[in-house]
């Protein structure tokens, strides 16, 4: 349904997107995952037709922005990162304003208010809404034209777990309506919970993509020894422990992330190395690799850096 080929976009001093290709089938929930500055927003804004790629081609349902803008605007709903709506307008007035842009009447607002669970706030000024409520309003505006394609750019960033869960509930409900969703996030659990297909980006490129199962089966034969030390001492020795596949060391927090083939074999060797190097461990955890660990392995960085 959405196909992007070799998309490149640079700004003055940043190569924001470096040749990304994506194929997104209809009716799926897609998460684009990555740390800040990975190029998620730039990529998504090019799909939304807000920015033009320097090179590459984007087609949505076989149409392109240069020839079918009016049509694409009607079938797409979107929520940008950090949009501030008009402070002194009420929630209902804001919805009516955007409904009018789509040629829709005032009858749409009550349905949207129910959907985003803001019916009791419909007379409140936007300035008096909490951050979570504003994000829900933003999603409500995105849903106003019953879009075939919904694109949400970091809808839950900075929200507390309760507010985040409220947004997830809205999105899970929408799934029944066969809406397609592209969601950017830097929360792994959000991608796991909501989405069928996951694209992990870092520094303008796609690092890995696939369904949740694909990603997990491809990588879960690995296991992880995650630890926190008092200093860097012994790091060299740890990376040479029997069965070790790679060590990612975070200088700031002195956190080590050692992926191994098999914990049962590697853990005793690891502990021996700790004793031999006179390193001090503050925390130690062993587990099967999850998406967070996968990201660290693929990029050498933590997702929330």
């Amino acid at each position, binding site marked *: 349904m959405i196909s992007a080929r070799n998309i490149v976009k640079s700004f003055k001093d940043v190569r924001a997107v470096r040749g990304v290709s994506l194929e997104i089938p209809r009716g799926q929930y897609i998460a684009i995952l990555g740390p800040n500055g990975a190029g998620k927003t730039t990529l998504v804004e090019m799909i939304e037709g807000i920015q033009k790629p320097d090179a590459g081609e984007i087609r949505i349902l076989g149409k392109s922005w240069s020839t079918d803008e009016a049509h694409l*605007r009607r079938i797409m709903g*979107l929520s*940008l990162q950090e*949009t501030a*709506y008009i402070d002194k307008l009420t929630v209902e007035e804001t919805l009516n304003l*955007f409904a009018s842009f789509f040629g829709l009447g005032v009858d749409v607002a009550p349905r949207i208010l129910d959907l985003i669970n803001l019916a009791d706030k419909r007379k409140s000024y936007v300035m008096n809404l909490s951050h979570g409520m504003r994000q829900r309003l933003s999603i409500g505006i995105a849903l106003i034209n019953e879009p075939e394609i919904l694109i949400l750019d970091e809808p839950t960033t900075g929200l507390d777990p309760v507010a985040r869960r409220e947004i997830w509930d809205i999105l899970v409900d929408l799934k029944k309506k066969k809406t397609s969703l592209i969601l950017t996030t830097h929360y792994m659990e959000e991608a796991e919970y909501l989405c069928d297909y996951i694209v992990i980006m870092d520094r303008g490129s796609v690092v890995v993509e696939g369904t949740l199962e694909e990603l997990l089966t491809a990588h879960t034969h690995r296991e992880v020894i995650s630890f926190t030390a008092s200093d860097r001492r012994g790091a060299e020795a740890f990376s040479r422990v029997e069965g070790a596949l790679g060590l990612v060391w975070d200088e700031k927090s002195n956190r080590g992330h050692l992926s191994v083939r098999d914990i049962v074999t590697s853990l005793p060797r690891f502990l021996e190395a700790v004793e031999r190097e006179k390193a001090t461990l503050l925390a130690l955890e062993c587990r099967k690799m999850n998406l967070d660990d996968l990201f660290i392995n693929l990029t050498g960085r933590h997702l929330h850096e």
Partner: protein
Amino acid sequence: MNKPFFNLVALQFKEFFREPEIIFWAFVLPIVLSWLLGIAIGSGGGTVSGRAAVIESSEATADYWISWIARERDSSRGEHAIDFPILTRDDAIVALKKGEISLFIERIPGSDSLRYFFDPRSGEAQMTYLTLERSLDGARGTASPPSEVVALRIQGTRYVDFLVPGLLAMDIMSSALWGIGWALIEIRIKKLLRRMAATPMHKSMFLASHFVTRLIVNALEFVALFVFVYHQRHHLSDDASLGSVLQLPSLPRVGDSDRSEASAHDARRFDTEHLQRGGGLRPGRAPRVRAGGTRRAFLLRRHEAIQMVLIDRGARDATAGARISR
């Protein structure tokens, strides 16, 4: 060298110059604006403030007068460049009403002295009068009889008459500039503009909405200011200052030519009647100066006019005082 004060000052300059649009708003716009205003206000050419019409006269004028005008015309380097259009009396009155000249002069028939016609409430006219008188004082012999001043009352020549329409224009300009400009910048900063552009909303409709809103707001502002000025006209001055502005396009024309200039007395009476009939011009009310216990309505001697000027301005200048006593 990392002082908080220095950093705070630097911060503001950085904030300023790192926003490239600012260069346009802060530097280019004022220059363009003052250029445009210069064209608008300066139209008509010359310094309006220094225009004194000379009434055509078939009589030969005294030598000093002709030579002085010639000299003054040649050198516009004087501290007051005064332009002397030669007009008929009727044209001079119309020009006075329109504010094209600030006073007009005629020679008192049968004498070398001058008669000035102006509205003493106009600072500009007073200035022109005083400048002319000073220059002429040096040019003619002390034996000449003194000049006469006829105080007229003309609507729309005072500073406030210039001020109110100016304020109105300024108001509309700034409200349009900031009302639209700033509103757009603000919703752009909020990224709302981007969000709206991502809907099927027509961009032309968006701009038109700002335009129409400003039009309505400006109309309301105009009415409010108009009503205020209209009600305050007796406080601001004796005449409706805005009213006089609105009268401009339909100035009554003073057209009678059945005058004779037999004597100063006749001329004076003619002035009174003639000007009264003309509507826009009225003979001056008695100044707050008493001469010999009687209030003299129309014709003032020169020193009386100067006294009036001083009283109006509240000045107590010793040199001027000396001139009065002369």
